[in-house]
Structures are given as structure tokens and as C-alpha cells.
């Protein structure tokens, strides 16, 4: 079996989630690599959408920023942020990919502060487009490292709404019906959400990772179904395309 890093594994798992996607709102970092890999290997028709106006780029070169020329190189559209966000608000964009410093059982994400808002312990960048993506896309997929300090019972700050405090909460506050968190890709596992309680649920562990290890690294009670499958390790083809075509400059991997 080929050697691979945890980051490479996360990218491959996220790319496989984009196999069926028609439209995906791509945030900065790993989602860019996953979209590029998916487009090259599984889903050439995938329309990648970037918040500052790039729609349907070739993704020939890996973007390093959500507004740079690579997000609209040989694209179908180069528009602006209002148009992109309004397209999401109208309901066209299926998947939204996001990162985060903290996530809770309901998929609420924090990218604003660790500690109080005034004089925090760590000031993070803020929402950027994340809140809009998490509010307006149909299904959001979070990609982050699986650590106890990141998977917490309650995030310090809800930058981007997940299921808030449970079933029906999104609709009650007025978020578009039928939207919400869908998957979480970590370096240990693939997770989803329980239909009834809207709490996070383990779906599959990565190769060599036990269910116990996932539980150990999660700071809240995770729903563990009777049957947990194991993810396929990165395929030779995935690694080759990732290393030689998606990120040959090794910006991320």
C-alpha cells in the first residue's frame, strides 16, 4: 500500500464526496485541493464556485486564495461576491465546503475567537464567506483536524450555523428550509448527522483507525451506529494526480 499523509487522506475522502456534486462552493485550503482532484479524476463537470466571483474555473492550477486569478482561469463566469452569494440564497448551490477551528455536535462552526469576544485568547480571521455558505448552501461539509480541543460540546462562538441546538432550530430562526450540515471529513473519520436528533454520527473510520480512537479524540458524545464501515485508503491514482497534477508545488501537501 502506498504511503500517504493524513492531509492527503482527507483530500481524497473529500474529493470522493464531490463525485456526484454538480455545484460546490469552495472555501480556502483543503476544499480547493479536493475540488481540483475531484474534477480531474471523478467529476470533470463539477462547477466550483468561489466567493469573490469565480464560477466554473478549469482549476488547472491550484488556487491559493479565494479571489485570485486561478479561481476563474478559463472559467465560465467571472462575476462578483453579491452575485455569488445571491445565487446561493436562491438555492442553486448544492454543496458548501468549510474549515473551522472548532465544531460542536450540531455542526456549528467557529472561526472567530477562542475565548470571549472582547480580548479573546486567540483572535481568528472571522466569518468571511463561511456564514453565508453555511446559511445558504443546501448541504455543508466541514473539513478539519480531529482533536478533542476542536470537537467540543459547545463552540466558543457560532460563526457559522449548523443545526444550532437541534431539530427544527434552523427553520425557527429563519434559515432556508432543508439546509444544514451534511458531512464532516477529519484525519480520523468520515462523520454525518443523525436524521432525528441532528447530532453528529460516526459513519466510517479511516484505515488503521479504531472507533475508540475516534471517541477518544472527540470532546462530546458521538453517535456510534451498530455498523461502522472503513474508508478505502487513498488509491494510487488519487495520490498520483494529487501530487503531480493538483499540487505539484506542494503548497498544501
Amino acid at each position, binding site marked *: 500500500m502506498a504511503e500517504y499523509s493524513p492531509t492527503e487522506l482527507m483530500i481524497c475522502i473529500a474529493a470522493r464526496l464531490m463525485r456526484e456534486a454538480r455545484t460546490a462552493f469552495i472555501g480556502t485550503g483543503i476544499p480547493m485541493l479536493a475540488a481540483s482532484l475531484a474534477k480531474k479524476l471523478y467529476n470533470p463537470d463539477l462547477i466550483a464556485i468561489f466567493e469573490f466571483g469565480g464560477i466554473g474555473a478549469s482549476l488547472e492550477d491550484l488556487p491559493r*486564495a479565494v479571489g485570485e486569478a486561478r479561481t476563474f482561469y*478559463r472559467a465560465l463566469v467571472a462575476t462578483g461576491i*453579491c452575485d455569488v452569494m445571491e445565487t446561493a440564497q436562491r438555492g442553486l448551490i448544492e454543496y458548501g465546503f468549510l474549515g473551522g477551528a472548532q465544531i460542536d455536535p450540531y455542526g456549528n462552526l467557529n472561526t472567530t475567537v477562542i475565548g470571549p469576544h472582547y480580548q479573546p485568547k486567540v483572535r481568528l480571521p472571522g466569518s468571511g464567506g463561511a456564514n453565508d455558505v453555511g446559511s445558504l448552501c443546501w448541504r455543508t461539509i466541514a473539513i478539519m483536524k480531529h482533536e478533542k480541543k476542536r470537537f467540543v460540546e459547545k463552540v466558543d462562538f*457560532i460563526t457559522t450555523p449548523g443545526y444550532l441546538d437541534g431539530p427544527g432550530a434552523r427553520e425557527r430562526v429563519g434559515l432556508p428550509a432543508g439546509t444544514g450540515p451534511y458531512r464532516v471529513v477529519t484525519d480520523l473519520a468520515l462523520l454525518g448527522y443523525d436524521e432525528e436528533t441532528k447530532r453528529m454520527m460516526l459513519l466510517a473510520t479511516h484505515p488503521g483507525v479504531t472507533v475508540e480512537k475516534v471517541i477518544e479524540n472527540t470532546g462530546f458524545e458521538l453517535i456510534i451506529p451498530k455498523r461502522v464501515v472503513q474508508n478505502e485508503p487513498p488509491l494510487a491514482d488519487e495520490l498520483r494526480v494529487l501530487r503531480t497534477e493538483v499540487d505539484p508545488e506542494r503548497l498544501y501537501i
Partner: protein
Amino acid sequence: MELIDAGQKELLQPPDVEEFRRWIRENKSPVLRDKVMDEHEAVKRFIKDGDYIGIELYGTVRCPMSIVREIVRQGKKRLRLAGQGLLEIDFLVAAGLVDAMDITYVGYEVLGLSNILRRAAESGKVKLVEWSNGALSWRFKAAAMGVPFLPVRSMLGSDTLKYSSAKVVKDPFTGIPVTLLPALILDVGIIHVHRADKYGNAQIDGISGFAFEMARASKRLIISTEELIPTEEIQRYPERTIIPWFLVDAVVVAPFGSHPGEMCYRYERDQEHLLEFLKAAETEETTQQYLQKYVYGPRNHQEYLDLIGRDRLEALQRANKGR
């Protein structure tokens, strides 16, 4: 309309659409007038201490960096900012010129957090009001429309809303809760473009970010441009004028004006310089040394470009893939 929820933060720039109309009537002239000036004059004439400023697009992408460096040189004080950006925000914060920000994102994407923002926020030196990126752009859109607010479906249920100055009401037509975003009328907008004529008619290549909305939300508007073109060129492609002359107060010619950021179809970002800045930003002392060398040192944009060096700038041009 029934008020359901409200952000608890102060509205840093309360919109006054009546005053905005009067201001436009008195100050925005449809007369075609040559507005070309250097960055020193533009900043001196159109930016005042205490102003609320917006900068478009952001840090590493089509950003009016030559104007930002001039603001730092002139030491405009007690500024308030629309906080969407990278080093353009960090330069102003590091120079101690910023009191408050409507913040959506200040950071370096894959290159990490902003240490300058961290020091300012964690010590409580800069007042921060939170928004989403869509929200900040829609606030410009509301101002551009000349209305006091816009209803949207973002920010609901989040702490981003709680620490903003948005309000949530029950929509009188459908009964669903909507977020009302107050219009954001800027004292000064600063936008970098690919081409403009001497009157301020401006063209942008590639994505337009929030240039369309912000240009129309600004009381005073400074355009910096890679290239000055004849008005006949503008007239040949009038559909390409994203910013018309009657919005513009100053046109500053600034080739490589976005450096160390990129300008699509023209030059790449200067990754090496960015990393040099980020390294310097790690401590307060080295940040000030960086500002000394690259911002206070050169007296104007030309001297800055001389400092960066012709060879390096040409290499960034050559590295660009074009269309």
C-alpha cells in the same frame, strides 16, 4: 415589522440616506473633469482623520496598496474600516491608525492567521463588530441602492449576528424571519482597477469582487489604476465601465499598484515578499521594521517600485499565465 432579534454591537457608521442624497447632489459632479493626481494629493485631499474607509478588492488580489502605503505615511488617525482583507488592513492596524472595524475576515487564508490583528484584538485595542462576507457586500449594495437596509437570509441564529449590529424582523409579506443589514455608506472608498481614463471611467478585468457596489456606496472615491487610457477607448467599450466618472474624485496612476498582491492577466503575486512580510508580522518590533523599510522609507509609489526592483517586477509579469 415585528423585531425578533438584534445584534448587540454598536453601528459604527449609521446610514443616513437623506444626507447621502444631499451630499451627492452637492459634491458629485457630472462634469467631465481631469482628476488625475498623485497618491500624495489624493490621500491628503480626500481622506480625513476619523473617516470610515473601504478598500477593494483585498490584500493579495487587485488591491490599491500604493494608496494604503500613502495613508500610513500621512498618518491618518482614528480610522474606521470595512474589515475584509489582509495586509492592507494589517498595515493600517500596525501603524496604530485604526479605532474600529466592521470585520468579516482578516487573515492570510492558507498562510495562516494575522498576527497583527491578533495583537490588536487580544489586547482590546481595536473595536470589532462581526459580519459575514456576503453581509458586508450587501451593506454596500444597500447604500448603492440608496436605501437604508436590505433583507437577507444570512447570519440568522449565529453569534456572528449577535456580535453585529444587524436586526432580525418578521417579513410582513411572507412571515419568515429575515436579517436586516444596515446600508454602509463609506466616507472614502479606494479601488484598484486595470484601466481608467482621466475622468475616472474605470474597467476591471476578471472577477469584480465588490467594486460595483462599493464604488456606489462611497461619498469620496479614489481610483488607482494600472494604466491610464484615452476616453475614446472607454467609449469603444462603454459596457465595460464598471465605475463611471461621476462617482470618482481622484484617479491615481499606479503600475504594479497591487504589489505584493496579484493583478489578473498582468502579474502574479509576489509570494516571496508576502512571506517576508508575514515573518516580520510575527513580532511588533519586526513589523515596525518592515513598515520602516517598505512604507515610511520610500517617499512615493515610484520609490517603492525602485526598492522592489525592476527585475523582480518583470519576473512577476512573466510568471503570469494570461488568459
